[in-house]
Every structure is written in C-alpha cells, then in structure tokens.
C-alpha cells in the first residue's frame, strides 16, 4: 500500500476484501470533516458537515446514538477545558494530515509476528470461507496466515486505535477466552481503558440507557482479542457494535467470520505468545497516543499563554 489518502488513517489499498462487510465509505474528500461521524462526538458543528458528505445512506439512517433523542439530562459534553475553537481544530486535524502520525509501524516487525506464532491458523476443516483471502497457504492440513496482509491490517488497526485514543475515546477490550481474561483486563487497566471479558449480557450496548442509567456514554471503539465466544460462535458484541455504529478492531483467526468487523487483523488468537504480543501492541499504541495528546495540549497552552502576554 503506497498511497495514503488524507482521511481516517489510510484507505483499504489493494487488499482483496471479503464480500458483505459493513465498512465506512471508501473514498472521501480530504478535509478533516470527512472522518466517520463517530469520532466527532464532541464536535456537533463538524458533524453536520460530515453528514452532508457522501456517507452511505444506511450509516446515516441507522445512527440514532449520535443525534440522540434519548433522554439525557446532561447536554452534549463540551471538551475538557475552555480552549478556543481555532486551537481545537488544529489539535484534532493535525494528526489526520499524516499517514502515520503515531508511527505505529515501528512497534512491530514481521519477525516479531513470526516469533509470536501469529501466522499459525487452524486446520483446513475449520476454515471459514471469508478468511480465504487472508490465508497464505495450507501445510499438512494447517492453514498459514499471510503475514504481509497481517502487517498491513495491523498497521491500519493500530493507527485507528491511536487516533481514537488521541481524541479521548472510550476503548473497550473484549475477549471471551478464560485463559486470557486476566491478561486482557490487566492490559485495559494499564492503558486506562475498559475491558469486558465476562458473560455478555444481551442489552449492554443496545439497551444501555436502561441497564446503566440515563446519560451513559457508550464505548467509541471495541477491540476483540478473540472474536468467538466459548461456544465457537461469533461474539454478540460484533453484531451489537455494528447496530450501534461503533467501529470494531478484531483479531480474526481462520475459523472466524471477519464480516462485520471494521478493522480485522487476520492472525492467531489461540497461542499465549500471540495474544501477549497483541496486548503489548495495543497498550503501547494507546499510551503513546495519550501521551502525544497531553504533549500537544501542553504545547498549545504555552503558545496561548505566550500570545496572551
């Protein structure tokens, strides 16, 4: 992938895509307002601009969460601190003009992925049809995942996560593997984000205002370390996130369905080494993004103070 259009951290490129995947619109114009509306929670003005752009009709129609008529006692939260609008724009639009603002490419190499056994898939019989584009080949009945594609997808996913974390979005780690439940929760805690590695109650996302109380804020990104639940079926959260217009990042193994996941990462999700690698990468990206945000804000403060004087 050589070309990096100045939108949401890179387009799809030449990767073959599985049919029927719900994705945001592929080609959009260069301005900052073309981000998927989800990232502009705190910016109703920019939101309206985005709406008028060429977004898929479905996405616009099925987005009640944002233009919510659900009773929320608090008004739309203003960004923390009373910074003037011009600076806001600069803080939020500047990262979008770089293809890899947070330099996530440096965090991992192909050799790291290979050593962590990310390329090992399940047996041929377990293969999911929609995962065929991501599979390099099959040796002695075991599928091998194409690590070049994994690199690209991983870079996209990490970049997206970094942008979400930069804007103060809520990230929810989901995994239903008992083996890695503790690890995932510790990772989430270390980043200052949230985790859900337990039994998923039906209405957590779709019925949140009744389950949690009015005015609750839903997660802005869901990260799946394991897409399947304990009965080897796709996790309910994938479908619910798609319903609620929440983007998802997920590690898909050869027996998983990558359809509804916004940024799939084809890779092994069963080996402890692989899962530890993913956790480490996500943790580093999120911390990096948050640090960068703090730095930028501090720089802005200093500049404004200098100007004010």
């Amino acid at each position: 992938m050589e070309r990096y259009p100045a939108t949401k951290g890179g387009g799809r490129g030449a990767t073959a895509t599985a049919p029927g995947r719900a994705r945001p619109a592929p080609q959009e114009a260069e301005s900052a307002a073309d981000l998927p509306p989800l990232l502009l929670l705190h910016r109703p003005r920019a939101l309206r601009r985005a709406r008028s752009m060429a977004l898929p009709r479905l996405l616009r129609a099925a987005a009640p969460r944002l233009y919510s008529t659900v009773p929320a006692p608090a008004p739309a939260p203003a960004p923390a601190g009373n910074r003037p609008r011009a600076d806001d724009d600069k803080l939020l639009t500047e990262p979008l003009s770089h293809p890899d603002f947070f330099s996530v490419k440096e965090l991992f190499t192909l050799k790291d992925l290979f050593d962590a056994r990310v390329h090992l898939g399940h047996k041929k019989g377990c293969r999911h049809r929609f995962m065929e584009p991501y599979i390099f080949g099959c040796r002695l009945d075991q599928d091998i995942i194409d690590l070049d594609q994994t690199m690209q997808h991983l870079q996209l996913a990490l970049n997206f996560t970094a942008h979400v974390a930069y804007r103060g979005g809520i990230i929810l780690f989901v995994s239903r593997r008992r083996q890695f439940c503790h690890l995932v929760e510790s990772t989430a805690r270390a980043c200052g984000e949230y985790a859900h590695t337990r039994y998923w109650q039906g209405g957590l996302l779709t019925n949140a205002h009744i389950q949690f109380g009015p005015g609750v804020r839903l997660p802005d990104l869901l990260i799946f370390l394991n897409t399947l639940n304990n009965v080897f079926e796709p996790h309910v959260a994938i479908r619910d996130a798609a319903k609620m217009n929440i983007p998802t990042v997920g590690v898909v193994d050869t027996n998983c369905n990558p359809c509804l996941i916004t940024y799939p990462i084809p890779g092994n999700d069963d080996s402890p080494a692989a899962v530890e690698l993913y956790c480490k990468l996500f943790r580093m990206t999120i911390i990096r993004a948050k640090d960068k945000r703090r730095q930028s804000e501090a720089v802005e403060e200093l500049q404004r103070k200098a100007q004010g004087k």
Partner: protein
Amino acid sequence: GNHRSLACGKCVHLKLLICTTTAVQKRNVGASGPEKYTEAFIKKQIEEFNLGKRHLANMMGEDPETFTQEDIDRAIAYLFPSGLFDKRARPLMKHPTEVFPEQRKIQWGEDGRPFHFLFYTGKQSYYSLMHVSMLFVINNKNICDILNRNLAGSRWLTKIELEEMLLEKVSDNDYSRFIQLLQKLATLPCADIEEKYIQKFSKEVPAQLQKVVIEPLQHDERGVAFSTGEGKRKTARATAVVYDNGTGRITVNGIDILHYFPVLQDREQLLFPFQFLGRIGKHDMVCTVSGGGRSAQAGAIRLASAKALRSFVTEKEVEFMRQAGLLTVDPRVKERKKPGQEGPRRKFTWKKR
C-alpha cells in the same frame, strides 16, 4: 380560620412525609437496577424531613432546636396511635439516609468516561473482586506452607452478605464461582497479604459443641453427699435429689413410691438407673414432680435421677448410661389433630356413596 388552615397544612405536609417514608422497608441492597434515588431527590427528602421536624416540634409545643429522634418517635406514636402488631408497619418518621438504602452514585465523570475499568460489564464490583482474587492466585509463587487457618471455626460470607458488601445483586452462579475461587486460593500456600485478603471474606462460627458439664457433688449439713437432676417427659417436669449412704428409700412429692406409683411398671422405670449402675440399696432419693400422667411422671423422674447419678459415677459409666438411653430426653409428644381427619392419623370413615 387562618390558624386552622395553617395547622391543617402542617398536618398534611407531615402526613405526606410519613406516608412516603414508610414505603421503603425492604432488604437493604443498594442499586438493584439503575439509579432509583438521585442525589437531588435525597437532598429534597432531607430538606422536607428537617422542615417537618420543626413543624412537629411546634405542634407538640417543644423547642424545634433541641428536638431529638426519640422525641420525634414519641410524638408520632402520640399523634398517630396504631394498634398494628408489626412494628415495621407503624407510621415512622426517620432521617432519609436511614430510610432509603445506600445507593451507588453516578458512575462516570463529567466527560462521560466511567471511573471503573470494568464498568461496561454491568457488575463492576463483583468482577473486580474476581479479578483481584485471580491476581492473588496467579501471582502465588510462595514456597512456604502456612496453612494455619482455622477452617473448622470459620465460614465463608453468605450471598446476602456479599451483596451488601458489593452493593450489587449477585446471582447464585456468580456467588458459587466466587466461593470456589476463594477455596482455591485457600488451598495454595499463602503469605500474609493473602491471609488478610481471605479473612475479609470469612467469618467466625462459634463452636456449637458444648461439653456437658457434670456438676460436682454437694454436701448438706449432716455431711452427706447429694446431687440434683432435672428431667421431663411429655408434659411432666421432675426434679430429683439423690443422697449418698442411703438405704434405697424413694419419696415422690412427700409420698412413698409404693403409694404414689401403685403400678409395678412405673416403679421399675424409677429403679432402672440404679439397677443399671448396680447401686440399688445405696442411695436415697427425694423427688418432686408435676404435670403429665402416670407414665410420663415416671419417665421424668427416671431421667432426673439418671442425671443426678452422673456426679457419683466415673466418666466411663456416664458414657454407658448415655448409650443405654438413660440420659436422653424422650422427644415423643402427643401429635396434633389435623383438619379433615378425625385424629392425628385416623381419617374419617370412607363411605362409598
């Protein structure tokens, strides 16, 4: 007219306050569901309570400043006398913090981000508890083997106690999983921190087995050793005083047993403990008995005398007596009659038509 309407207004206000506050007398588990009592609501209730307290003090002709909770209770009992038996059903006026169960406040900050990292699971306190316990289990690398926990004298928290601790509803499955995790942690070699953590969830059980104390012999003015015992059977209650160095004379309610118990069976019952121990002619006995019938009184005296004889005898023989059934209270009493039947067991005569 003015004064009357004012009083009426106060009464109505007071009534309102009292009616609303009696409603919530349920089991004190906070947050069963999303926020039921917002902070604003509780504040308003507190204001109303304070206002009502002053009105009440004025009504009773006392000083509003020094009107304590006991005065309130007395005033309410005077103004609203109630003959209801259940104390919780009577009108009451208490501070709202005592009435409304403790609830969890809003779980997220100004920017909408929740405070707890497991907020989106729905049961954050319970799952964070599981997380911490699992952390102890995983990090357990101790080689030392300190298993000096007194497992016999302690029990785990019950489900209700856990709910009160977490302020969250806990299902049966969740509770059993938590207890299993604690038990697993308890079996591992534990260090000090883990001991303290486990102690938070275990409670002392007072030892239920109390050894029966055999009273020592007492001596009367003449220097003769004696001992007392009490016994009961059906509705009969008996006390027996057994004297040492006796000739085998037994008196019941001041009457000799030959006259009190004309039937041989009853006299045999009385003598059974002595015959069992081989001390027939060696003790005197003075008994008092009341209630029951002929046979019941005999059984009661038998038990009383056996209990008294324990003081004269070795521990081995006490054990023999216990195994012979001399020291056990006979639990059989008259069974009640049931409706639809003629007696406790007898049904009415069945008629084909």
